[in-house]
């Protein structure tokens, strides 16, 4: 399903931080993982993902390193820094509050 871009603005950062909160991943893996977990509802766009990853890395929220993937090919893995972990937790809480508030407004809080 194609979502209104307005709804998705600001979600890329939350998605990246949430995914990386569990383990290090490389770009392609993040796209696949987001797609898998959302049952293909979400598809991180490559053109959005890579600039966002570089931005977060330069902001000190992510760190990266090259290492061999499971296939044996080297990949650039991203992980959270201490600052990134704090931000991930803060974003997660904010997102939960926003989504709870939205559910209340939409009238499906018992769904």
């Amino acid at each position, binding site marked *: 399903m194609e979502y209104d871009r307005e709804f998705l603005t600001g979600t890329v950062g939350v998605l990246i931080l949430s995914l990386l909160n569990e383990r290090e991943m490389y770009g*392609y893996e993040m796209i696949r993982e987001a797609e898998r977990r959302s049952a293909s509802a979400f598809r991180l766009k490559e053109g959005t993902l890579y600039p966002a990853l570089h931005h977060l890395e330069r902001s000190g929220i992510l760190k990266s390193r090259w290492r061999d993937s499971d296939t044996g090919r080297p990949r650039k893995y991203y992980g959270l820094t201490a600052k990134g972990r704090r931000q991930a937790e803060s974003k997660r809480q904010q997102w939960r509050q926003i989504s709870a508030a939205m559910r209340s407004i939409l009238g499906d809080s018992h769904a």
Partner: protein
Amino acid sequence: MPEDIDAFIEPIVEAARIPSRRRRDELRRELRSHFEDSGLTLDAFQDAVARFGNAARIGQSLRQVYRRDYVLVYAVKVGASILAATTAAILIEALASLRLGTGPDAWRLSPGFAHAASFGVVVALALVAATEATRAPFTWPRALVSTACYALLPACAFALDSNIAGVFVTASILAAIGVGFARTTSGWTSRALLTLAAFAVFEYVLHQSLGIAFSPMRALAAGAVLLVLWASTITIVAVSDRAFFSAFRTT
């Protein structure tokens, strides 16, 4: 297939304007590995390209990320141009002020050297500022920053010496003439001759209007010194430009 991947990636890397070669290589490598993960068949490549979206837009987004580095390197380039141009201006004025004679002080500088050197430095600064302000493609922010930085100099210098304002006005007019001729005329010879004539006429008219005796031959000689200063400054700016842009070239 690898050629197709490179053909898609290179414009993104180039548009990103990342000053560090290591980071550019890393971005290239990262994007290439993404396409390898997507699959190396033609269909897989075309799908991946479609998902990536507009290459120019991705390059623009990455450029925003690395903008601070770009601005910093640009400032270093302008600083280096200024240092080289002002040093050259002092040397040129020293050569023009050199007086040869006999005896113990056979080689000496004329009494007006200090004034000529400071004037030469201001002309070089004005030329660098004018070149930056009018650089193609023209942008208002760059023009305003260049003009404001140049305008700060007389404001600071005026606090020290109230007579300095005239020097800056004169240097600004000369820079406008120099950059104007550098932009509008083609061919080095015609450009140099026209600029020399314009400088000489300006020097002559300026001195006449101030009531200072100044022969046409002296005006021509003063114009020739300014011409050398103009040529050295625009050459220095051009060389630093070439070095700057080659630092971002990806191929």
